[in-house]
């Protein structure tokens, strides 16, 4: 059944992946173009990458984006993991339905609405807009993604391990740190990475909630893209793609290695 693959399936795979990757590939290729015109090839050059290094506006925006991303992803992972534990371990508590709704709604909520509502909230509580408001906004919308990732892991998790620990007298906190977290950490790490890249990418919510001195990289890219396609933007985008791609490939390989090791250990245990 799985040994051979039909022509139809090969065609749909090739077509699907070509569609997914060709646009990104052209963007990367043209970032190495010597010409200032993005669509005319004039030979290989890394001039735009060197130019980038001297573009202070872009560098500052990159630094803001990185700080917002690191901070918001970390807090979002903490809150999102707590929410995942609450939703998957406690079947009954006051307002559980409301909490489920508040976790799933932001996943599909159009960004303009999330952005607008958070901005009006920050204005209502009279909070100065800038780095902190963008960070708070990013925590709120990324924590829901963390919750979904961690929750799906918690649901497939063998709960008898937790029960055993608690029956042996471990407190819930000790059980969490000694039993649950060591087993679900790949999901928590994946949640952190997802939150970090979502924060890195976000244009709309950041545009609404930002203030003076807190221009993020997507906002900078957006304002330049509106003026036209430039090889310099291609270069920034290529660097971002390279960072994200490396992260995803490394995590996938680590996960695969872990699964292989786990399977081997299980075989050994069964053999013994």
């Amino acid at each position, binding site marked *: 059944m*799985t040994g051979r*693959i039909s022509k*139809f*399936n090969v065609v749909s*795979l090739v077509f*699907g*992946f070509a*569609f*997914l*990757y060709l*646009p*990104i590939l052209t*963007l990367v290729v043209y970032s190495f173009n010597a010409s200032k015109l*993005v*669509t005319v090839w004039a030979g290989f050059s890394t001039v735009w990458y060197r130019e980038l290094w001297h573009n202070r506006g872009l560098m500052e925006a990159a630094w803001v984006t990185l700080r917002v991303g690191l901070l918001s992803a970390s807090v979002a992972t903490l*809150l999102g993991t*707590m*929410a995942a534990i*609450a*939703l998957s*371990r*406690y*079947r*009954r508590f006051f307002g559980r*339905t409301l*909490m*489920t709704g*508040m976790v*799933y709604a932001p996943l*599909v*909520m*159009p960004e*303009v*609405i999330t952005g607008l*509502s958070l901005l*009006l*909230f920050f204005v209502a509580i*009279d909070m100065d807009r800038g780095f902190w408001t963008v960070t708070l906004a990013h*925590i*709120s919308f990324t*924590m829901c993604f963390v*919750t*979904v990732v961690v929750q799906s892991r918690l649901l497939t998790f063998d709960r008898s391990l937790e*029960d055993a620990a*608690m*029956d042996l007298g471990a407190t*819930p906190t000790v059980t969490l740190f000694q039993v649950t977290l060591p087993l679900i950490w790949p999901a928590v790490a994946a949640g952190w990475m997802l939150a970090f*890249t979502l924060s890195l*990418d976000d*244009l709309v919510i950041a545009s609404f909630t930002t203030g003076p001195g807190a221009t993020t990289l*997507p906002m900078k890219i*957006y304002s330049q893209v509106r003026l036209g*396609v430039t090889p310099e933007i291609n270069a920034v985008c290529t660097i*971002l*793609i390279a960072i*994200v*791609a490396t992260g*995803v*490939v490394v995590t*996938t390989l680590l996960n695969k290695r872990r699964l292989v090791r786990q399977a081997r250990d299980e075989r050994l245990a069964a053999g013994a």
Partner: protein
Amino acid sequence: MGEPGRKTEIGSGRQGDAEVRAARRPASRGLFRPVVIAVPYLWLVGLFLVPFLIVIKISLSQTAVAMPPYRPTFGDPSTWWSALQQLSFDNYLWIAGDELYFNAYVLSLAIAAASTLLTLLIAYPLAYGMSKAPPAWRTTLLMLVILPFWTSFLIRVYAWIAILKPEGLLNQLLMSIGVIHDPLVILNTPVAIFIGIVYSYLPFMTLPIYAGLDRMDHSLIEAAADLGSPPLKAFWTITFPLSLRGVVAGCFLVFIPAAGEFVIPDLLGGSRTLMIGKTVWLEFFTNRDWPVASAVAVVLVAILVVPIVIFQRQQARAG
């Protein structure tokens, strides 16, 4: 409210059992449970629910009162009654009276629906091909689908500008092989929006469908084949119905955000195709009319609330 309650009774007797045992343990009377529930709960109420209620409140207030620097009128209960009297539906009447908004809503829903269908047409064969690929390839194929999903939305939309421009790569290619003689105008038309949405949301559709197909019991197809069913009939009577849950989840994941999409219509659609996400943006940033922007947003949520609730139910049931 009835849905999760029923589920507890039928589906998770073991969990109920564990909870009873947990309740008997002295340790569980500690702070763990209240903290784990309350902290994320309060955060979501404070930064998701309350902001949305503020949007509703501002959508009901007068433009002049709510223009920046707009004064919040919370806190003092004695002002609540007068604040209540100031509420008006003027902004909603304004939206209802202007064809521009109506057209933008209809156009957004139509574009979202059509591109959801197009995404499905590309994603399904892709997911199907992945599920039929040799197991050794699958991790790699899955990673290849997930990778663009992690890559910046803005960057992926931007990549299409250089391709679709009149002097762009697509036209260069088509003209050099002689298919066309005059460049096609694709950028700044609805076609470019379709391409942008299908491209950006393809992983959201592919992943749930693949998850469904991957879980499927392949002996069912073999049984159908053994009993003389042609492959195409086996697909429509067995495979497709079994993957329907993934299809529905994928459709919601594409349709709902696409209806409120801002970046794609703004960068690829040009100024003549006005979708509702862009209308909110323009009302807010260009016209600086916060109450009308809020009202447009509230109406959009009201339209999307049905698909959002269905999506939530489905997710909660799957969880």
